[in-house]
């Protein structure tokens, strides 16, 4: 295992410390329990937005703390959701008196720990509502499973809910906007290589030189199936088709297209994927009116990418366009 780290036990704390030093104009890092809050603290009268989860997905979530997006982020250990008594103080820090929305990615651990944290906060008299992001169409969603995972679509939820909070929506309103994004965003990913969790010390799965994993998540889990390496255009079609079909996209609709890198993929390759995803959407008569290409929801140094599509309407478009000032999204 080759990493630019000092010690698997301290990498998260040191990295977040460095993040705080580099972005002192945007965020404040509190070391124990480890949380990242917006510089200047909660905004009175604004709904507070909190997200968090296991580390290793940077810039998610700390990179999205700032004006127009999150008020606090809670970084867990690598790929391990944070604990309730780490999350609860983030709720308190984010509360400006209008209640707090927790944006939770759909993993058993995240859901349980955020649930418990919300109970703790509730006992302190704080109103916390939660939304659960579950955009990964690689995973079957049924009453009898853990449901779909939350992956790159999380960026869209955090950005747009953040804009709704910033424009002054109340807690019900922000929840409704977040739910609308969740209902209209879908993703699917591919891995060319595995990633290595520092404390595990070896790759999360073994993949031959000529095979790739389709339908991977963001925790180094193997995907749904393994196929021979193929040209980018073909792989992109394998990702985009289930996304478009699950969304039931029809001709004339407008969408945001996000091509997300898993951390170890060159930007140049992400644009090759973007080009084809866009052609395929246009082939379906779907208009791509907003785009984002880059490493936003990563899986350490994994090589691969995911394709996310969000169905847009005028409200979501305006909220996407609203100003944002964070370390990783800025306009």
């Amino acid at each position, binding site marked *: 295992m080759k990493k630019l780290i000092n010690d698997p036990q301290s990498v998260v704390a040191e990295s977040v410390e460095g993040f705080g030093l580099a972005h002192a104009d945007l965020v404040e890092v509190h070391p124990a329990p480890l949380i990242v809050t917006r510089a200047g603290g909660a905004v009175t009268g604004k709904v507070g937005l909190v997200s968090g989860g*296991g580390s290793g997905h940077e810039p998610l979530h700390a990179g999205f703390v700032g004006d127009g997006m999150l008020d606090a982020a809670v970084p*867990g*250990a*690598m*790929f*391990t*959701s*944070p*604990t*309730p*008594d*780490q999350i609860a103080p983030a709720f308190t820090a984010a509360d400006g008196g209008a209640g707090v929305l927790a944006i939770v990615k759909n*993993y*058993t*651990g995240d859901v*349980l*720990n955020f*649930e*418990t944290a919300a109970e703790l906060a509730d006992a302190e008299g704080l109103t916390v509502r939660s939304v659960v992001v579950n955009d990964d169409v*690689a*995973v*079957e969603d049924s009453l*009898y*499973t*853990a449901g779909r*995972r939350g992956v790159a679509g999380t960026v869209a939820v955090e950005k747009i809910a953040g804009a709704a909070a910033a424009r002054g929506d109340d807690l019900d309103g922000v929840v409704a906007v977040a739910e609308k994004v969740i209902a209209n965003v879908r993703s699917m990913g591919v891995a060319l290589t595995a990633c290595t*969790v520092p*404390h*595990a010390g*070896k790759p*999360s*799965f073994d993949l031959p030189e000529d095979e790739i994993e389709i339908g991977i*998540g963001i*925790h*180094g*889990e*193997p995907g*749904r*199936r393994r196929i021979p390496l193929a040209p980018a255009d073909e792989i992109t079609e394998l990702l985009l088709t289930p996304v478009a079909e699950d969304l039931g996209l029809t001709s004339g609709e407008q969408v945001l297209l996000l091509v997300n890198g898993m951390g170890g993929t060159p930007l140049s390759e992400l644009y090759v994927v973007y080009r084809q995803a866009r052609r395929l959407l246009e082939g379906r008569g779907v208009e791509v009116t907003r785009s984002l290409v880059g490493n936003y929801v990563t899986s350490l140094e994994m090589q691969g990418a995911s394709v996310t599509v969000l169905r847009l309407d005028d409200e979501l478009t305006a909220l996407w366009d609203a100003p944002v000032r964070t370390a990783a999204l800025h306009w």
Partner: protein
Amino acid sequence: MTGTLGAAWAVAWTRRTAQVVVEHREELIELDRQIGDGDHGENLARGFTAVLAKLDALDAEPEDVGAVLKLVATTLMSTVGGAAGPLYGTAYLRAAKVTALPALDSAAVVALLEAGLEGIVVRGKANPGEKTMVDAWTPAVEAAVAAADAGASPAGVLAAAAEAARGGAEATTPLVATKGRASYLGERSAGHQDPGATSTALILDAAATTAAEAAA
């Protein structure tokens, strides 16, 4: 009553668990690497190491079994994270509630195990056969009930539970996961033993071993 298990056993169980979990850290990581995200061993080692530190820092001996289990519960909740943190945390918390007793007889040991399982099911909503720690806890509770009914000592009850948990963990191998992270793999989750069921077997084995030592 002879053979009952008190706070000293609960401390011994907890210390043994910490030791065993650290010893099996890599094995649990490896199992979780196969069908999960490779952190289960790390998470439990971190959690139980914190529990040890808490035990060492205690001013006085804990009053009863429940006090020890409550300390374990709150420490796991605040240091483990992931799925296992809240699940084991709730298991220990529920178990603590029914063990605020200076000494556990066989029935009390059964109650402890039942409460633990109940905590996991309340939180995780998994049924048996979904390839989770429930698949180790469920046969353990059943075996404990049967042993107690047959008049076994507390140590005997735990021995039966531990044995059944190990069998239950092994029996997860062919299952297709429908709960937890392994469920994302679908059919590909079959052929691997569940890490959480495996750690449950280790924890209950530590309970049985230390109970046998206490009885000896």
